[in-house]
């Protein structure tokens, strides 16, 4: 069988030739017609760059190809002129992107955007194109495609938008579909649906799919063959079964080992129940009014958090799981009084909901927060010393400058960063290092409780595991309590003693982690578990 796509010794370079900035170093792989190939790697491994170069979508002024060729049906795409490429893009090779929110133009209806490839490539008339796209939309599982056809992108949910993107990509029956992290931005239950859809469509259209992802679990479910990339090198290439059964390259083994494992060795539910209660919340409620009209009167309300009760014990991790919009982050913000709410919050024997703002500021030392995105949670114009020292200045005003620095250096050591980073700025650090700085910033205050709002979601799997182990280490050594908010059930299973499952602002199920994972009672919990913990192929 002749290969549909064949990449030979491809190197990609950003910017000028004199600098050492080659990001992909001579990779080669082939794809047959109708094959499902996955390109796996962590951020910065060059997987997306490789995919973009297939369609030559790079900015020509910034990107050059020192060596290599990309043959598609025997033709070298790198040597094609723009005109030929335009004929191939969307017709023979289509692409779907990670972020369905930004991949659709907000000022056109989805119908206008959908019929465009048909009119351009097939020369179809408007009515015929509309007819064909309606069929495709129906095929992608969008309910009532007639109504959705004239909707604007903002009127659709994220999952629906991704379906629209898929329909658009399939418009001209391409021979190759490049899917760049197609499910990363979606909720787990939606992820599973999109993945199933892609699989069905791949079979029906008998097209080849090149899936780019960081998620090995998903690949295992979807792909025939896997290429693993690291730092711009293709380190291993094997069929799914071979790769998972006997990974050859150390990096592949490392990736497979990076799946979080349960870190709470001997702390059983019975032992935890005897510990003293640190925080207790009763009938917590947070409502956002919907306002309309000239005088902005309230016409309704969104219950972001609805009658939630919870208890956190000393040294315990309480996991809060839920999909986007379930109110889990809002609940966390309410508990720390960073968001207005009603209900009773008792922290360490003291009512938090009634305390005045001045006294609350002093109490804040005891309950801290680490955010999801380490890029936006550190002020870009402050040095590491200023960032970590700020809390010390407020809560330990008696410290001299030298004593403060001493504590900062010590805490940097505890998060495995060296003391010479004091005068550096956040932009000089990687995502994992930034998250360590964010953790150091709160740990230096010696709090009793830390709210962890998706602390590992923005990190690569390998770094994720290190950060989780670091957090667990602090819990053991300092006796910290954690409120761990995440959508990732694998992480929760590794870290949490008990779990709350949230949906639409209220808690649908709560209980001991192992119990909840092995025998979920609520229907929603079962769906969530099924969607996120697929092991091997589920057919």
């Amino acid at each position: 069988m002749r290969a549909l796509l064949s990449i030979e010794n491809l190197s990609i370079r950003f910017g000028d030739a004199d600098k050492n900035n080659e990001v992909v170093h001579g990779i080669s792989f082939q794809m047959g017609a109708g094959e499902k190939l996955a390109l796996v790697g962590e951020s910065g491994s060059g997987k997306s760059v490789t995919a973009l170069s297939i369609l030559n979508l790079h900015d020509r002024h910034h990107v050059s190809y020192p060596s290599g060729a990309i043959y598609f049906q025997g033709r070298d795409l790198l040597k094609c002129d723009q005109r030929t490429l335009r004929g191939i893009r969307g017709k023979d090779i289509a692409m779907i992107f990670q972020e369905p929110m930004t991949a659709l133009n907000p000022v056109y209806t989805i119908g206008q955007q959908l019929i465009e490839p048909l009119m351009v490539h097939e020369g179809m008339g408007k009515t015929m194109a509309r007819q064909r796209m309606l069929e495709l939309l129906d095929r992608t599982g969008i309910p009532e495609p007639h109504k959705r056809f004239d909707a604007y992108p903002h009127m659709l949910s994220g999952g629906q938008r991704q379906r629209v993107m898929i329909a658009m990509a399939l418009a001209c029956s391409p021979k190759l579909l490049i899917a760049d992290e197609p499910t990363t931005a979606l909720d787990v239950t939606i992820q599973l649906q999109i993945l199933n859809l892609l699989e069905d469509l791949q079979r029906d259209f008998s097209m080849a799919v090149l899936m780019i992802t960081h998620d090995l679990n998903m690949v295992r479910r979807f792909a025939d063959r896997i290429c693993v990339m690291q730092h711009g090198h293709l380190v291993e290439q094997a069929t799914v079964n071979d790769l998972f059964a006997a990974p050859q390259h150390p990096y592949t083994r490392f990736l497979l080992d990076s799946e979080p494992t349960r870190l709470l060795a001997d702390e059983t539910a019975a032992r935890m129940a005897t510990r003293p209660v640190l925080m207790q919340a009763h009938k917590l409620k947070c409502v956002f009014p919907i306002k309309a009209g000239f005088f902005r009167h309230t016409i309704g309300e969104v219950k972001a958090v609805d009658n939630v009760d919870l208890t956190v014990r000393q040294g315990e991790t309480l996991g809060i799981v839920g999909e986007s919009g379930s109110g889990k982050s809002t609940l966390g913000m309410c508990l720390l009084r960073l968001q207005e709410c009603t209900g009773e919050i008792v922290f360490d024997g003291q009512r938090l909901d009634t305390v005045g703002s001045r006294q609350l500021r002093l109490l804040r030392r005891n309950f801290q927060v680490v955010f999801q995105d380490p890029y936006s949670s550190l002020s870009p114009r402050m040095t590491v010393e200023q960032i970590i020292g700020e809390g010390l200045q407020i809560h330990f005003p008696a410290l001299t400058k030298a004593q403060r620095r001493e504590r900062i250096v010590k805490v940097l050591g505890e998060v495995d960063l060296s003391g010479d980073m004091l005068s550096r700025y956040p932009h000089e650090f990687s995502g994992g290092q930034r998250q360590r700085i964010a953790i150091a910033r709160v740990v230096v205050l010696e709090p009793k409780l830390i709210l962890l709002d998706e602390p590992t979601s923005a990190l690569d799997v390998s770094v994720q595991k290190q950060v989780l182990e670091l957090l667990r280490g602090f819990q053991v050594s300092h006796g910290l309590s954690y409120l761990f908010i995440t959508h990732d059930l694998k992480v929760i299973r590794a870290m949490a003693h008990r779990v709350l499952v949230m949906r639409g602002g209220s808690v649908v199920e709560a209980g001991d982690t192992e119990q909840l994972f092995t025998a979920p009672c609520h229907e929603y919990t079962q769906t969530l578990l099924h969607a996120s913990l697929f092991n091997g192929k589920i057919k």
Partner: protein
Amino acid sequence: MNDSVSQHGTAAIRVPLSNVQPLSPARRAWLRFKTNRRGYVSLWIFMVLFILSLCAEILSNDKPILVYYQDSFYFPIIKSYPETAFGGDFETEADYNDAYLKDRLTQAGNWVWYAPNRYSYDTINFATEHPNPAPPSAQNFLGTDDRGRDVLARLIYGFRLSVLFALALTVVATAIGIIAGALQGYLGGRFDLFSQRVIEVWGSMPELYLLIIFSSIFQPSVLLLIVLLALFGWMGLADYVRAEFLRGRNMDYVKAARALGVSNRAIMLRHLLPNSMVSVITFLPFRISGSILALTSLDFLGLGVPPTTPSLGELLAQGKDNIDAWWLSMTTFGVLVSTLVLLIFIGEAVREALDARRG
């Protein structure tokens, strides 16, 4: 040698220092600014011109810098001497351009060190051979205006006044704009809504009419102009700062600061302000050039500074009235255009330098 031991009170901590000096965002912006040759050169030219103009009294003055008369030194540039001190007849201040006095000051071992241009902005040259406005000559390098005052002197002093005026106006208006925008953006809600309406009402006032009215009520002066223009000039910037604060208020690092227990004032000053300065600084050169233009046009219309004050706008107006006296309009035009062009080149370079996407 990579490591250094630093002594802190009682405890000595080993702080290994790497060879690469970490660059602050401001320092990196400065390096990017320097790579823009045009803007960098413009900044140098502008600074040199501005500093020279600050020394206008030495460059262009009808009083000599130093006089040596009958074995003693005189400093007319700082101190005023009566004509009798140099053997004249009158008790009034000496006119050093007077032929009789010049003669006495250069006789018998006496000497005078004149300024390079022997006229101040309000010196009237009575000795010119041509009717005023007089064309350029050896006496007046760029001619005189219609009252016999030296054009070069007026340009030097006028440039200085324009730039100082623009700097003062920019500082005042920017300060008001930052404070107003910061409060609106950070506090939000009702305060924001109310202030926005106030700004809309205030912004729709006819600025020019108010200036005409005020200049007839009060004695026109530079200070009054700064106050009036600043009252109307802060609104544009306030909108930008407000938007930056609104955006920044919801950033995680602000939430993190609130969770640390940082006070509102400290959050605004330490976290939000440095991060919203980009738009403020980007606007500064353009605001300065805008202010210069505003002063010039008001002076051109006769609504600006009092008549004796050296001003580019007033020279332009004279140039319009004496259209055949090309040395009035062309030179003023040249000064004005080069000032504005320099500022705009600097502004472009600043804008590019602050664009963090440029690495």
